[in-house]
């Protein structure tokens, strides 16, 4: 058992292995406010990676409707319940991480899903609920109506629970980019990783007898391209790149700037202690208590910053780079009303106007003597 630094919880913590950060860390920012849950990301991933036997139920990428959508069922609630109430103080997590709360004989506090837990990938999808069952709602809940879409992939954690839990050391974190992979030659399908991963992003393949997971489309990422679920995103909510530790954050690295400088994108359940590397812009309309539990104590400041994007030219600009190119954009800058994505060496990849020009068409086309109809 090692002692490692976890900047997301503001302290050192226990981990099965000593600290060994990769040279660079794959990371992503998802803007939950833009997601429409079209599941194009899910389909893009599914058709690319999980069309084989035993992979039928697997969604390495999924989008669930919070608070009642889950895949697998109640993945986060079950663990939150097992961990019990914990506290933060001044940005430092005072509670126990999943490694620190491990029970006797275990390396991680986890729970084992069963096949039936994957049978309903998004219960309550698009259902506002809230007491109108007689008018068609699926169920009633004793709180105000709200929901938001949470898109999820593997977090390629700095301290992966799957990796820590594998008794065979079949899971490894690549030193060059921090992507977490299961060695398909070595895995013997013990499912310890399925039990340990709190995000439930490791899946057992009953036909090959091994466990499988999101690979961050590493064959693409190695070529400087963003993963399939990113480039197929209709809502342009996703941005892939690399994240630094706070002390090495670079303002011209888009992910660093959003995560460390503006602090507008937050990790998912940071209190679990894995230092996950998908960062979420929290939804602006959801009760804060719920969001603080899900994204940590930085939620209020993040939402205030996000709400101010219209008056923050840089923030407004950077969000325009989301979905603008298939290439990974390691650097960025803004010039007036244009945001520019750059390679590490400064070569321009893409430039995007921060505000699209507005064209107004007359409904009646005099040249063709027809009335145009806008079809949404």
């Amino acid at each position, binding site marked *: 058992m090692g002692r490692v630094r976890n900047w997301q919880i503001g302290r050192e913590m226990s981990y099965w292995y000593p600290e060994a950060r990769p040279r660079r860390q794959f990371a992503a920012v998802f803007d939950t406010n833009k997601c429409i849950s079209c599941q194009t990301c899910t389909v893009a991933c599914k058709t690319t990676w999980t069309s084989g036997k035993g992979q039928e139920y697997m969604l390495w990428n999924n989008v669930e409707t919070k608070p009642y959508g889950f895949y697998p069922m109640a993945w986060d609630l079950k663990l939150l319940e097992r961990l019990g109430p914990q506290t933060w103080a001044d940005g430092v997590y005072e509670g126990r991480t999943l490694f620190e709360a491990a029970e006797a004989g275990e390396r991680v506090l986890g729970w084992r899903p069963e096949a039936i837990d994957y049978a309903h990938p998004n219960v309550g999808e698009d259902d506002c609920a809230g007491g109108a069952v007689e008018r068609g709602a699926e169920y009633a809940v004793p709180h105000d109506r709200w929901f938001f879409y949470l898109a999820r992939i593997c977090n390629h954690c700095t301290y992966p629970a799957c990796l820590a839990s594998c008794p065979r050391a079949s899971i490894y974190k690549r030193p060059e980019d921090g992507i977490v992979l299961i060695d398909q030659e070595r895995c013997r399908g013990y499912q310890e990783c399925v039990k340990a991963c709190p995000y439930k992003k490791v899946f057992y393949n*009953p036909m090959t007898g091994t466990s499988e997971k999101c690979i961050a489309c590493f064959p693409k990422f190695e070529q400087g391209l963003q993963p399939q679920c990113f480039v197929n995103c209709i809502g342009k909510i996703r941005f892939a790149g690399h994240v630094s530790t706070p002390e090495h954050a670079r303002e011209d690295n888009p992910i660093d700037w959003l995560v460390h400088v503006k602090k507008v994108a937050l990790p998912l359940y940071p209190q679990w202690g894995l230092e996950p590397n998908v960062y979420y812009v929290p939804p602006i309309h959801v009760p804060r208590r719920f969001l603080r539990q899900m994204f940590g104590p930085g939620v209020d400041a993040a939402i205030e910053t996000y709400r101010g994007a219209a008056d923050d030219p840089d923030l407004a600009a950077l969000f325009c780079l989301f979905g603008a190119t298939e290439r990974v954009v390691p650097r960025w800058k803004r010039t007036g009303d244009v945001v520019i994505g750059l390679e590490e060496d400064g070569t321009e990849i893409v430039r995007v106007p921060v505000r699209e020009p507005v064209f107004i068409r007359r409904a009646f086309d005099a040249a063709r003597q027809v009335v145009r109809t806008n079809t949404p």
Partner: protein
Amino acid sequence: MRSRSGRIFALVVLAGGCGGAPPPESATEVVAVRRPTLAGDPAAADWAALPTHRAALLLQDVVEPRLLAPSTPEVRVKAMTDGARLAFRLEWSDATTNDLPDTGRFSDACAVQLPATTAPDVPAPQMGEAGRPVEIAYWRASWQAVVDGRPDAITAIHPGAAVDHYPFEAASLPPGSPEQQAMAKRYAPARALGNPMAGPRAKPVEDLVSEGPSTLRPAGETRSDGRGVRTAGGWAVVVVRPMPAAVGSDARTQVAFAVWDGERREVGARKMRTGWVPLLVEGPR
């Protein structure tokens, strides 16, 4: 040494042999009785007369992940040899059949472990030690079911599953053609990499080598075989493996056993196991 072992049998047989000839017992060791041919079927009559060693099973609570709740209390072992191979018949109580793989579902299984070399200083019984390997023959109920004819299809696990299409079963690919087979392999990463876990499976047994916890690896080739059947209250499994390289006739070595109860989600290091048990390999009479 052989005669001493023979005396132990005789005493046990005499002590319990006056009221209906219960099978003889060997209290302190497993004896591989010399036979001209080995019985690969656990139900074969040849096994009935052989001495049984009752090996108490211990919790694997040495390395994480540990098993903290005891389950299967003992395994009853018989053994025979034809001079070239060793056959072990393991029988244990298990009220439920667990032979379907799935998420959160685990298979009943057992294993027979021998040191790779015979030396007075045996390696640690817990999966061997660095530089001092142990050889393991591992039988799994879910593999037995495949060998016995369960189809290689998701509907064999989930009968209600509906599958629209697998890309490697496209109409443009003649079924069973080299192109079709190659494509099917690409969609099963573990199989493409030659991981024996992924099949295709012709035997219910896999040969493994280990040099300490977490070092388990497949042997270059599985030369062992076996067969497991349900009994009235559990499993009876025969594992037949080649004679260890350094073991000759009338030789002594060690053997250890492990049992996994799938119903209790035992898998990998979460198992019931024995320490080393002395093994006498009888020579020709």
